[in-house]
């Protein structure tokens, strides 16, 4: 896929749909690569480090990367960038929107796994998925996914984009909890949700947001 390099005109919905689909079917690193496809990372990224797919970095020359135990296993690395960093502009906001779509796809991917897990596990002779607290949590999660998807097109407002990513962080945590303690083991698929939050930390400016 070639995520549109600009999100003008009719390209927005298609590029966002593609990114969410890739995040869901292929995972975080593939989604990240799609969101950043054709973009000038060094000229756009807002912080000293920028999350990139490990594969895309292999094609670059002379990039210094910071590795992180969990991110490494998700094929995500952090490129070190020179200071000072450029001010936020439209190109960065577009990446923020595409990254949000990828992250929603990753939430869907792990939510599917959570539902499988909860259907297979019994407590008191009943599958966990039928416990009201669990059913309610799943319903809240997917309803929030539907809502947040509709917030992505408002990405040009920095506060709206920051709020969107913070709420996707929270969604990821709500999915993680559905796995119980298994969701705290580093080789479990929910690792992608921890790394997804770390990716957003590098690409999204939220220092102006309070509690």
């Amino acid at each position, binding site marked *: 896929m070639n995520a549109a390099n600009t999100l003008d005109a009719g390209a927005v919905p298609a590029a966002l749909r593609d990114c969410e689909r890739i995040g869901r079917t292929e995972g975080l690193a593939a989604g990240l690569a799609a969101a950043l496809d054709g973009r000038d990372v060094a000229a756009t990224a807002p912080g000293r480090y920028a999350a990139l797919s490990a594969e895309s970095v292999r094609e670059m020359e002379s990039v210094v990367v910071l590795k992180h135990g969990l991110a490494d296993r998700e094929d995500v690395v952090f490129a070190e960038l020179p200071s000072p960093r450029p001010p936020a502009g439209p190109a960065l906001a577009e990446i923020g929107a595409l990254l949000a779509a990828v992250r929603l796809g990753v939430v869907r991917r792990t939510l599917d796994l959570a539902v499988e897990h909860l259907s297979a596990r019994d407590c008191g002779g009943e599958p966990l998925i039928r416990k009201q607290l669990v059913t309610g949590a799943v319903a809240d999660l997917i309803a929030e996914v539907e809502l947040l998807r509709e917030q992505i097109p408002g990405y040009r407002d920095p506060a709206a984009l920051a709020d969107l990513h913070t709420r996707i962080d929270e969604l990821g945590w709500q999915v993680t909890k559905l796995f119980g303690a298994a969701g705290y083991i580093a080789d479990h698929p929910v690792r992608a949700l921890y790394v997804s939050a770390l990716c957003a930390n*590098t690409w999204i400016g939220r220092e102006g947001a309070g509690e």
Partner: protein
Amino acid sequence: MIELDARLRAVRDVSREAAEQLRALALAIDADPDAMEAHLDTEVYAMVRTSNTPARHRESLPGRPLRLLDEGNCLETVVGTLELARGDAGALLACPSPALAGVIVDLLGDERQRELFYTRLHGGRTWTFFAMTEPGRGSDATAMETRLEPDGAGGWLLRGEKRYIGNGARGGVGVVFARTGRSALSIRAVLLEPPHEAWHAQRLDMVGLRGAALSALRFDGVPVRGDMLLGEHLPVTRRGIWGAIETFNNMRIQVAALAVGTALAIAEYVAEHRKSAPGLPVALARAEAARELVYQAAARVLRDPDNSYLSCAAKLGATRMAVQTARWASGAMGPAGLLEHPLLEKWTRDVCAFEFMEGTGNIQRLHVAKGYLSGDADG
């Protein structure tokens, strides 16, 4: 509001001083939780180990620049734990100490068993374990499958599996829960001293709080002498499951204290590096409110040890607050702030652990609602 008396203030101050040493170990232990040898003679580890050991079972320590705490009640332990976690919860849980196993050995063990257990910990190179949770069963003790089979000679053979057991793979002495029959009263706690060829242990790679060294254990007929069952001298109703419930009531508040201590550490870290961060006063106010609730819950356990309402509410609220604080902090430090501040990044992973320890949020919710409906909110 809980007013700390002179003794509690002393506990707080000693622990606050010791916490600095834990902070210094935090990143090294997170990077390699197995490389502990260089840290084991740290003063704070000797202090934590001996403070949690009843006076009559303590070793004599030369020097002792850090003051030792006397054997304390639940509130004193909570005040101390919270301050130590403000240093680093992962480094605290990596300490070879009596920990949860000590609570149950004190509760159910006879004098000889206590002596055996605590003597093994002298020197600070023996970790302990408390093995209750089973794969696929969470902490639902009534569904426990690990069993003790009679060996025909007055002893037992232990068979089954446990998972998410802190320090399990490196533990030298600890407690495993298993059943001798089908009823709830047949659930017993046994004292074990691995290794043994029928004892199989593997450390699990954790997302955070890696100092806790969660492990998976499998027992393929581990021999257990008859005199290693805890609680033989107690009435049948007070031998196994009762001890576990009492231990959990106590530990739940300790976990809440770990969450609050970590949240305070996070907020204070942001205050130090970005004094004007929006939301800082709110983050601090929330953490301080949670600290007060945790103190209140500990005081309530002292008055009414069987009532879990407030301790469950405290664990639920403190855990949620800690995760929120970490999320706020990761934004407050600006783009890539987590990668520029590895301690903060570590703590954003650590705070998630508290959700899964001593009962998840949903378990706490059920207890809180039950307590509220029974009038405990007015008690």
